[in-house]
């Protein structure tokens, strides 16, 4: 081992050349044809934020309809379309692109590479995902073949058979849904392959597997999981299209087919998908929490092991979505236990985050606020998850708003909070400017208040027996006030998101100039310029520990002495 690490300063002019004034058309051309992982990462994130607004607007329309009993704001048909599109949008057009945006932007920078392993595959994957989203939304126009009024898919985001059969879902809306998911799925698989190949093959000198930042580790785990998660969905969608277009009988009970097998196939995709979305949220927390606690992450090997453990266990829990369809007792017991098993690695993570914060010199900047709320809310989401994993409990509350509250706690309370944390944390790297802290605090506190008003209350609505997917209810059920509170909370969250959007635009032009390393962080991406040049690093970095920038800043006490 070398006894000393030092920076090479002033050997190269590293200030990025002043950008030439581009015409409008040149800029568009540059972004459309780019194969640069950073530009594609930004495209992914912008695309996801756009659909976050669209999916959020759908959610608000749903909440307006449910705010009062016997409301007529949305017709039952439109209501069905909106909750289908809300779910599909948030999972496939917001969650997946967002996590791949982060991974695309950060993984090569964090491992000291100049780009992804396959830059052109990367661009191809992004555009497949993008056109998948456009295709899904085109169904609003073309769902019934451009004649008369269009319609969107209205079969629910899990599209249970036999509702998706030609007889029950005429028109083309369901086909748009299936095709859009296949198309964006191809993009997803391309990106997953790319991330695995990048992390394994493109690491800089000295970046052994156990020196990779946890962000990279988790994205490696997620990409591996994606390979075996999205593909069953693709297979099931192909079967659905065979049924709808070629007269096949996969899910046709009148010819001996089975509707239950669709449910199995969908959740074989659907449950690991939750972990595909939540592991990147862990990844963001793993970077933000140590930096803002001024301590190295607690229990790095345990974190890696827990992540890989979650990946494997998550593939064996899908049927806990199916306790009410009448499985054998053995199946019920198996899926109850396997689901509970996931609480162990997840618990390890939560303890490690707490131990990282414990005794740290915590700075509550906006990224850390969101990360702290993430830990707290994810814990509650996990606890209601354990409640629902118990089959008899699930029999009572299946398809009630309790379940909706549980998974929104995961998707919003954990994943969206972590995404916000990541956006505030890495925005300076991507743009060279800080996001505004005051607006950030408004964004955070309004979102926390709105979130808890909506989703805490929703648990009680569910316990009082309100089923999901109903477009209205009668006034004498005792749900009136609670539903009004849920809707008010939703609008507070909406305002908070708009503040965030305003913050993004304002800070992009007027934000404080960030410099290369505004948070005094330790991973390699902060060694590059902000924003990084196309080639990322003028010379290939080489590392000796998990925190290469710590080694640089503290040559008297470098990490590699202890590893």
């Amino acid at each position, binding site marked *: 081992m070398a006894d*000393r690490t030092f920076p*090479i300063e002033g050997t190269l002019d590293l200030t990025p050349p002043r950008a030439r004034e581009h015409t409008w058309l040149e800029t568009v051309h540059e972004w459309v044809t780019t194969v640069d992982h950073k530009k594609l990462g930004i495209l992914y994130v912008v695309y996801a934020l756009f659909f976050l607004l669209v999916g959020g607007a759908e959610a608000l329309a749903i909440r307006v309809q449910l705010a009062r009993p016997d409301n007529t704001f949305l017709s039952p048909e439109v209501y069905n379309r909106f909750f289908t599109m809300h779910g599909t949008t948030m999972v496939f057009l917001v969650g997946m692109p967002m996590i791949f945006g982060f991974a695309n932007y950060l993984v090569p920078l964090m491992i000291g590479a100049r780009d992804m392993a*396959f830059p052109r595959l990367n661009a191809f994957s992004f555009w497949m995902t993008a056109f998948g989203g456009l295709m899904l939304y085109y169904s609003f126009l073309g769902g019934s073949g451009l004649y008369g009024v269009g319609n969107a898919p209205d079969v629910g985001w899990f599209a249970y058979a036999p509702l998706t059969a030609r007889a029950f879902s005429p028109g083309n809306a369901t086909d748009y849904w299936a095709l859009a998911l296949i198309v964006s799925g191809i993009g997803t698989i391309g990106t997953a392959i790319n991330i*695995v*190949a990048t992390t394994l093959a493109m690491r800089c000198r000295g970046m052994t597997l156990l020196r990779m930042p946890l962000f990279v580790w988790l994205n490696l785990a997620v990409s591996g999981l994606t*390979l*075996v998660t999205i*593909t069953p969905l693709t297979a099931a969608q192909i079967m659905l299209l065979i049924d709808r277009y070629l007269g096949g009988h996969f899910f046709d009970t009148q010819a001996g087919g089975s509707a239950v097998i669709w449910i199995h196939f969908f959740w074989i995709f659907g449950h690991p998908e939750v972990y595909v979305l939540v592991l990147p949220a862990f990844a963001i927390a793993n970077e933000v929490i140590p930096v803002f606690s001024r301590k190295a992450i607690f229990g790095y090997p345990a974190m890696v092991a827990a992540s890989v453990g979650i990946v494997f266990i998550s593939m064996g829990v899908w049927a806990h979505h199916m306790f009410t369809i009448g499985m054998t007792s053995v199946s019920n017991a198996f899926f109850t236990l396997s689901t509970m098993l996931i609480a162990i690695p997840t618990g390890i993570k939560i303890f490690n985050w707490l131990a990282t914060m414990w005794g740290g010199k915590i700075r509550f900047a906006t990224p850390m606020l969101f990360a702290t709320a993430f830990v707290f809310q994810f814990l509650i989401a996990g606890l209601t998850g354990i409640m629902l994993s118990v089959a008899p409990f699930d029999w009572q509350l299946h398809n009630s708003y309790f379940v909706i509250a549980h998974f929104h706690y995961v998707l919003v309370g954990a994943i969206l909070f972590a995404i916000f944390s990541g956006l505030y944390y890495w925005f300076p790297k991507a743009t060279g400017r800080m996001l505004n802290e005051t607006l950030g605090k408004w964004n955070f506190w309004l979102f926390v208040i709105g979130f808890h008003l909506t989703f805490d209350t929703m648990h009680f609505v569910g316990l009082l027996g309100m089923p999901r997917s109903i477009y209205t209810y009668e006034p004498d059920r005792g749900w009136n006030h609670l539903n009004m509170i849920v809707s008010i909370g939703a609008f507070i969250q909406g305002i908070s998101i708009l503040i965030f959007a305003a913050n993004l635009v304002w800070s992009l032009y007027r934000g404080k100039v960030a410099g290369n390393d505004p948070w005094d962080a330790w991973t390699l991406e902060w060694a590059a310029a902000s924003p990084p040049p196309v080639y990322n690093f003028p010379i290939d970095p080489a590392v*000796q520990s998990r925190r290469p920038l710590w080694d640089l800043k503290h040559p008297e006490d470098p990490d590699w002495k202890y590893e």
Partner: protein
Amino acid sequence: MSTTTLIPNTVSVPEQPWNPPSRGRVAMYCLIVGESAIFIIFVVAYIYYIGRSLYGPTPKQVLEVPIFNSICLLSSSLTIWFAERSLERNKIKLFGAWWALTLTLGAIFLVGTGIEWHKLIYEKGLTISTNLFGTTFYSLVGLHATHVIFGLIGLSVVLAFALAGKIREEHSERIQVLSLYWHFVDAVWVVVFTVVYILGR
């Protein structure tokens, strides 16, 4: 510290071996893992639906075991391996010969499947919409045949380069990555054959 760019770099480190795996190979293994998941879903559906068709024709009435076809496809795995070895030893002519033989064997398999399907559709009256057996049979075998077609396209491109004299020893790595895909297609056939023609009959 705001404008200086610090690039961590070790100077005076004795050259340590640093050999990360080949990105092509990693990506191909990933693709194979993903594709396997697709096949598993179709195979599971096939096995689950064996004997559940409510009306005929049944597999026993119409299916003939494609032994010649299978021998062709499986032996093509062997010939492509000989081709890889020839290229590694810089015997370019021999590589071309083995490669062309592989392509021929794959094409024979595909034509054989075509003939089998033609018979099933026009003589025995089994189409994808006839019954549940037809649906699962044509989907699973068709999914595999689609992979054979993509494999044959890949093989043909390499053959075109070989005929143009552009393949050299240094392309060995890339050729081996492509061969991995072909080996995968062959291995899947073993599963499909077992499920469709042995278990299913």
